């Protein structure tokens, strides 16, 4: 056995946008063990629930993550609605679905860009982010916020989208699709990208399941697990198939995310066609008393909001299990046995968002 050395990786690293620290135990160039440490950006957001009334807390829930903000807010609202047994108007459900899918596209484009950057493919990074700008512009025009939308509330949504705007959004996505195809083509077909990604960081099907991987990470390992299939919001009325790949390597995770954007476009178009008219919110009175686990699919995977109310305006407990926290264990598994030079790519391939992992 050759000598072992420990290399600290992160929390500051050129490819990592997030403060994750890994102690990599190396034998020559091979990683034999990795020990993760988080805890650099713990903000104690869950504790704030004791100081803010539950309708106000939506804005804090949204700030758990700066990328999947809308879905956090929505899941929190679904949790409260679950406890209070509220049936929100159908149109609000559809609007939530549309905004969720926009968030997903914006997050995936952001990730594709960062991933290209991690591979050293600068111009691809900029092209991905240019497309993301279209998505952000639509979000801005409909919700009033680019990244933190603030358009969800307990009992519905806060803004309506006019039908002309909805059509315009759908046709905008249509015209974007061509460029998106070209972009995805580079990720999936370019020989240098393939060379860099194929076979790095393989997560086997069983490992993915038993270690609790979620989102694109588990779908890239051959499971078709997608929380949207539960049918929350309007997903129950729309038809879509989770994107699945079987190889379990970084390339497969990239492929799943890239193809998921087309699913999202399709879902938005279906939703625009089917969206019913009607009110967008309902009056909520009283306070939640009880507990509820709300689940939904974020760009990074399944998120759980556990909400416990005690009959007052202040909740007793709000606990969020974000997808990245669940993906840390699979990450440690796939790091074992890889080359040191592949570590940045592999870490990025699970799309880590440590800020939301720690809340």
């Amino acid at each position: 056995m050759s000598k072992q050395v420990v290399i600290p990786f992160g929390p500051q690293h050129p490819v990592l946008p997030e403060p994750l620290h890994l102690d990599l135990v190396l034998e020559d160039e091979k990683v034999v063990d990795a020990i993760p440490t988080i805890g650099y950006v713990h903000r104690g957001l869950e504790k704030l629930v004791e100081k803010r009334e539950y309708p106000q807390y939506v804005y804090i829930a949204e700030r758990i993550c700066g990328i999947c903000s809308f879905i956090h807010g929505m899941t929190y609202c679904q949790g409260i609605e679950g406890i209070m047994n509220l049936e929100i108007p159908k149109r609000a459900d559809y609007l939530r679905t549309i905004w969720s899918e926009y968030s997903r596209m914006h997050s995936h484009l952001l990730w594709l860009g960062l991933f290209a950057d991690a591979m050293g493919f600068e111009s691809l990074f900029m092209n991905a982010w240019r497309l993301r700008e279209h998505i952000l512009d639509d979000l801005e025009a409909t919700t009033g916020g680019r990244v933190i939308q603030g358009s969800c509330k307990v009992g519905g949504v806060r803004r309506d989208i006019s039908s002309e705007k909805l059509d315009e959004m759908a046709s905008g996505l249509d015209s974007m699709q061509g460029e998106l195809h070209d972009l995805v083509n580079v990720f999936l077909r370019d020989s240098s990208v393939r060379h860099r990604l194929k076979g790095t960081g393989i997560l086997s099907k069983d490992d993915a399941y038993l270690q609790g991987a979620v989102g694109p990470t588990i779908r890239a390992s051959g499971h078709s697990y997608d929380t949207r299939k539960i049918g929350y919001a309007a997903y129950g009325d729309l038809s879509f198939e989770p994107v699945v790949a079987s190889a379990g390597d970084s390339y497969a995770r990239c492929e799943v995310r890239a193809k998921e954007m087309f699913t999202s476009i399709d879902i938005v178009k279906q939703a625009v066609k089917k969206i019913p008219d009607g009110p967008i919110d309902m009056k909520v009175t009283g306070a939640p008393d009880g507990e509820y686990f709300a689940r939904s699919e974020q760009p990074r995977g399944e998120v759980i909001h556990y909400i416990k109310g005690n009959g007052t305006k202040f909740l007793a407990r709000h606990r969020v299990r974000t997808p990245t926290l669940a993906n840390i264990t699979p990450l440690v598994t796939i790091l074992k046995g890889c080359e040191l030079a592949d570590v940045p790519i592999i870490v990025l391939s699970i799309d880590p968002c440590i800020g939301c992992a720690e809340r």
Partner: protein
Amino acid sequence: MIREEQKMQDITPDSLIRSVQAMKDGGKRLVQIGCARIGDIFEINYSFDKDYNFENLKLTIPSGLEVPSVSGIYTCAFVYENEIHDLYGIEITGIAIDFKGTFIRTSIKYPFGVVSSKEEDACQNKL
């Protein structure tokens, strides 16, 4: 909109390992472990999922009691168990990778385990 059924089952510290093992034998995936403080009592929720069927085991313990780790059954439990230890100060014995309180570093020790301090001064007066 479809709302998920919330299946809850109460367990005791003695039956914890047995119930979790039964979940694993049933091919279920560990979704999360989370803790909540209700007065002096801690509730630990172990959530599982299989084919979109969500199930939950609820362990209720008084403060000061040690809880055995389930990371021997599900490795991924170590993340959640370290988190519970660091935020609530509940001793969890035998975690697969035990960070001994350094997983999430906070300036107040066990911030979620203490009763929230009410703000003396309205916070808009602080800069």
